[in-house]
């Protein structure tokens, strides 16, 4: 069991986490944050393995991983 938490206000919507995720469960949110970026979010959280690849390539350290 693993989960990630995306800090929506830190995320700048660069999308680098999307190709990094081996399970392809990262997508961009449809509503924008205070800065005007579309933040990343996770779909199908039950498939997350907690590999932290998304967090590793995140330039804004907006993703925390729990296991």
């Amino acid at each position: 069991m693993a989960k990630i938490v995306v800090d929506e206000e830190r995320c700048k919507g660069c999308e680098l986490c999307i190709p990094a995720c081996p399970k392809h469960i990262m997508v961009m949110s449809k509503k924008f944050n205070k800065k005007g970026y579309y933040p990343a979010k996770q779909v199908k959280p039950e498939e997350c393995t907690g590999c932290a690849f998304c967090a590793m390539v995140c330039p804004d350290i907006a993703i925390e991983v729990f296991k």
Partner: protein
Amino acid sequence: MKKVFGRPKSLTKDPFTYCPGCHHGIAHRLVAEVLDEFGIREKTIGISPVGCAVFTYAFFDCDMICAAHGRAPSVATGMKRSKPDSIVFTYQGDGDLAAIGMGEIVHTANRGESITVIFINNAIYGMTGGQMAPTTLVGQVTQTSPYGRDPKTMGYPIKVAEMLSTLKGVAYISRVALSKPAYVLKAKKAIRKAFQSQIEGKGFSLVEILSTCPTNWGLSPIEASKWLEENMIPYYPLGEFKTPEEVS
């Protein structure tokens, strides 16, 4: 559930001021994680450059000095010599280290000053608006090389890691990238080794980090990572160029 990945303690809570997708943030995190792991934050002095990373002093939660353009290795030399027990690192871009600061970095490396240099190579001047840097690739279009870099009049891109590895005072030099998770893990190891060389007093250490500049390259962050892998890595091969036996 336990947190297995989060913000390192050696970074402040300030959000980074970099453009979306810029690799500076990843490099900051790796350096901060290494400071945390060695437990050296309280005795570390960082030197920030002039360039996009000038605000590095606000992001690292350790003592920081902002040096004049390109002069970070000289400031670091002074700090290390006056406080030999401290851990001193500089964080410089290619416009800072490879252009105006080329003299400083070469002589600091040649003297074998026991400092660690984090060198971000994104093949362009970022903060000033995308001008040609000494590391700009042949044929690369920038604001000041609108028809592509022509080596006949503009010279060839400088391979800093290879050049400095020929100097005797250098202990550790490697080149890494940050465009995918596997590279990020390798980059962390390289930065660890660089700081370890300094802690053990082996001499000068430098890690050249190939980084993207999506804004000035005119690409999306994902396209920029791809461009880096297809164009920069063939010219700037990754790997270790010099290691002291005890650190490798």
